[in-house]
């Protein structure tokens, strides 16, 4: 960046830092600043040109990086703005705005804020700067605003007010300013987008303040709550230490009150770590036993296996009030391992979780599946989960899990077709790749061939659908 321009400060997100009372008026993108001759500064290419009440600011704009500094020309340094000549040539060119800038003796733009003399006669040198607008912005509108801002000379009002009473709102004397931007008490009138933004900002600040006030009360409440939590923690620690140092001589009363304490903590929503160490807090233990009792009848009705989700719904419905969460349900079921209850939780490979009787045996189910799938009809057409469900007396979803498990054990093979997902008895183990055409007399293959050849293959009995 050359030394010609005044330096303009930029925020960390690349926005110019505005002076006190400075308001943005207009903005153009893809603007080049060309000097009349290159002695003063070199061409500034493709930047953002921002017009404010005080300055013309030029920012290098690229999507890749955030600008760290900007160049500015104080409006006070501008001695003349040329009117745009509409000629034949200008139709084909990018629009241009030309203006004359006063140059001080050190070759830099005259900067009135540096306090070097008055705005006139600080040096008779001036240079013509051309702003070439290559972007799509409203050039004529910008020019109008440029004239307005330049003539309004807001910087002079500011100077007067700041050197005056020194009040923050800057209510100074309006010296010969003709209408336009500024209301009679010298405050900046809300104009344009900048005005809207300013208004919003003020609204935010006042909201923020009222929120702060409101929160004073909440803070007080929270500090009390903190104390409560600390108290609960202390008690928990005590319980913990009590449990770990237990000897056989501990009396029942102590145990009782400790369990009560755990109960109470739980009901306030604090999960006691004692739950994990011992057989579980009283609450979960009770729940677990209750669940085991309850689930007995639905299990019978469902043929010995019930989906965990179904059990959860049934249980909560039965409870009516004081519903339990899915997490409670899972915990209660997991506790069954530690008790002597006739039910257990089981997770299939597919992720499906079921409650089943401990007396349930997979082998028994497989035996039943095998006998089902070797019946002549099933040999011809296979079985679907629905078929298995009917035979086994369980829900189709449960039946499918059993069939998949049987498949993984090599008992069954799957057949996927437009007719659906079916299972057949697995014939592959009996077939020898080195002797493909040979069929053993008494194997499953010969049974299958016999069954298949009695009727046409592919004809399905309608009852099986």
């Amino acid at each position, binding site marked *: 960046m050359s030394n010609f321009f005044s330096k303009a400060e930029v925020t960390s997100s690349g926005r110019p830092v505005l002076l006190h009372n400075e308001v943005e008026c207009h903005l153009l993108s893809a603007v080049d600043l060309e000097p009349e001759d290159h002695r003063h500064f070199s061409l500034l290419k493709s930047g953002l040109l921002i017009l404010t009440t005080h300055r013309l600011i030029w920012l290098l704009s690229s999507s890749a990086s955030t600008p760290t500094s900007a160049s500015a020309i104080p409006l006070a340094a501008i001695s003349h703005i040329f009117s745009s000549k509409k000629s034949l040539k200008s139709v084909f060119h990018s629009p241009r705005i030309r203006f004359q800038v006063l140059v001080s003796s050190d070759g830099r733009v005259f900067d009135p804020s540096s306090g070097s003399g008055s705005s006139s006669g600080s040096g008779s040198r001036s240079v013509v700067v051309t702003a070439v607008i290559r972007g799509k912005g409203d050039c004529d509108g910008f020019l109008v605003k440029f004239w307005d801002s330049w003539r309004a000379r807001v910087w002079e009002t500011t100077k007067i007010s700041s050197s005056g009473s020194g009040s923050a709102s800057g209510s100074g004397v309006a010296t010969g300013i003709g209408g336009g931007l500024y209301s009679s008490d010298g405050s900046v009138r809300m104009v344009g987008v900048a005005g809207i933004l300013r208004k919003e900002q003020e609204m935010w600040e006042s909201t923020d303040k009222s929120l702060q006030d409101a929160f004073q009360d909440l803070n007080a409440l929270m500090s009390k709550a903190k104390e409560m939590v600390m108290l609960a923690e202390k008690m928990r620690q005590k319980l913990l230490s009590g449990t770990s140092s237990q000897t056989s001589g501990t009396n029942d009363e102590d145990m009782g009150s400790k369990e009560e304490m755990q109960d109470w903590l739980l009901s306030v929503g604090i999960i006691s770590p004692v739950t994990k160490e011992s057989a579980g807090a009283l609450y979960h233990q009770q729940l677990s036993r209750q669940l085991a009792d309850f689930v007995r009848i639905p299990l019978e009705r469902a043929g010995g296996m019930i989906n965990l989700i179904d059990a959860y719904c049934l249980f909560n419905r039965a409870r009516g009030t004081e519903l339990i969460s899915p997490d409670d349900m899972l915990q209660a079921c997991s506790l069954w391992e530690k008790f002597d209850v006739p039910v257990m939780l089981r997770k299939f490979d597919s992720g499906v979780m079921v409650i089943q009787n401990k007396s349930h045996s997979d082998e028994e189910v497989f035996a039943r599946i095998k006998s089902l799938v070797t019946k002549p009809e099933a040999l011809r057409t296979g079985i679907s989960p629905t078929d298995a469900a009917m035979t086994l007396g369980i829900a189709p979803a449960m039946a499918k899990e059993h069939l998949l498990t049987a498949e993984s054990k090599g008992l069954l093979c*799957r*057949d996927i077709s437009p007719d659906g997902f079916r299972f057949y008895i697995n014939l*592959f183990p009996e077939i020898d*790749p080195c002797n*493909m*055409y040979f069929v053993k007399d008494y194997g499953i293959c010969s049974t299958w061939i016999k069954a298949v050849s009695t009727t046409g293959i592919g004809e399905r009995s309608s009852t099986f659908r």
Partner: protein
Amino acid sequence: MQKLGDFKLPHFFNYPPYFTLQPVRETSEKQIQLWKELILDYCRIQKIFVIRLEEEFPLFSNSVVERTLSHEAREAFLSALVAEGRAEWLDKGRRNCLILWHRIQEWADIIVNFVKDNGFEDSVMTVEEIRSGIESRGTELQGIDRTILVRALKLLEHKGKLAIFKGTSTDDEGVKFSV
């Protein structure tokens, strides 16, 4: 016994699960083995040298049980053959597969025997004559796929059993035996 043209089909060809790619490893290994053997047998008997996946291939469908191998299954079985060296993909997109129901070395041996049987030890023949000439009628060389024939000849050339040379036009590749 069911037939596909002249080809006798094994009994499990009508077993519907045979046409569904099995997920359980032990089962699928057996299934793949059976398909590999079946494909090789069928291609040998029917003298098929190339299988194109995007075309109908009689072996891959069974109208009696109304089942067809999915594209995924076809690719799986052919890839297994390729892995064993009994087939080769002709293109990167795996749409066309060259089936080597005789390995190239086996074809080379057949050519050598053919030459000896017919007394061609020092003769010259064109490539085309080897596969469609009078002498090859009734032998395995009759109608052999040109790609495979040329590969086998190149293998023999490498061993010094013959020399391949270009004739006056591109169709006219010739072979001088020195078996």
